[in-house]
């Protein structure tokens, strides 16, 4: 089973993301800020990180920089999931090594599409409406 670390300071967002990702067969761990997330990654690298930007203690951008410098830290696919919807933020995130970017609000279709984009979820056989 693939693993996904959900990093967001909102417990509501973590809960929604967990539900969507569990339906996509991911095993979920949660972190409330970048520092907790970094500790989790030092313990075990997840296959994916769903990452908020604005959080106390350590924000998502700083976490990403630190993650990519860890041994094996280039492995996880990092998908930002944030209300920071400006082109400048998106460009900075990609430059820092993010693989995809979700602009909140999000729903199951967007999460699915983005995880397909980074190759963590297979494409559906048939198209649907």
């Amino acid at each position, binding site marked *: 089973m693939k693993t996904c670390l959900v990093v967001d300071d909102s417990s509501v967002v973590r809960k929604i993301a967990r539900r969507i990702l569990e339906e996509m067969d991911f095993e979920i761990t949660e972190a409330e800020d970048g520092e907790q997330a970094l500790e989790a990654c030092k313990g075990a690298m997840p296959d994916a990180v769903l990452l908020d930007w604005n959080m106390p203690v350590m924000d998502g951008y700083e976490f990403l920089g630190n993650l990519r410098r860890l041994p094996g830290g280039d492995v996880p696919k990092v998908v930002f999931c944030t209300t920071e*919807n400006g*082109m400048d933020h998106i460009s900075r995130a990609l430059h820092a090594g993010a693989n995809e970017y979700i602009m909140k609000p999000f729903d199951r279709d*967007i999460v699915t*599409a*983005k995880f397909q984009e980074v190759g963590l979820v297979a494409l559906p056989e048939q198209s649907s409406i």
Partner: protein
Amino acid sequence: MTPPDYEYLRKLLKDHSGLDLSADKQYLIESRLLPLSRKCGVPGIAELVQKMKGGSSTIIAQVVEAMTTNETFFFRDKVPFDHFRDTIMPEMLKARASRKSIRIWCAAGSTGQEPYSLAMSLKEMGAVLAGWRVEIIATDLSTEVLEKSKSGVYSQFEVQRGLPIQLLVKYFKQNGELWQVSPELRAMVQHRPLNLLHDFSQLGTFDIIFCRNVLIYFDQDTKINIFGRLAKAMEGDGFLVLGAAETVVGLTDVFKPFPDKRGLYRPSGARAASPLGATSIPKVAAMAGR
């Protein structure tokens, strides 16, 4: 939108069209029905639902049509665009090496996601196309839909379905909550109103035709008729791309499936058997061209 209104609409759509919306499609209903409620002169979806409950069959029909119009998104279904990049274009680059021009038709261009996806694919191919002239013609029945396509303006939801973030950054400009396709990409796509039931020979001859998720709305005779006319509008070594749930098999022999590439077809060289006129117009013709 209140949960009871959402449930009412879900059930009604299921009963009237077979459309099965999951529990989190509120945004889809809002994006489709808010314009309709304005058109009907009511402030919002709640009032629209009131009218429907009051038994207004015209409103119900309009709601069903607005919702069943195929949702379209960038690089929809992925596979056809892989075929385009990995199979169709390499072959066309060889076959048209002396002419250096390729004509592409999006026969159900809708709100533009498909033609712009093709335009991005072409741009991403880079230098191999230097000196080539590639035309993309997008047609749709609805002028309203074509206007949206021409504007190239999409909501945040629309640009997050199927469009890799790198391509968003590269080919779009942000304007608040909206995203607009770059002028360079928009200049690659021409728009024309067209009903597939009518003669389309004036569009000329194409090397590649994308005709996805539109023929499903037609009855069998009409499909056969359209396939016959598509074959005539195509070079003998061209490519036809159909939707994932569509096929020519059992309907016509003017196209034959391309081996091992689902949804991809080529002209067989056979002539269409006595094509019908555009007389048998199906009931759902209003949805054609989306």
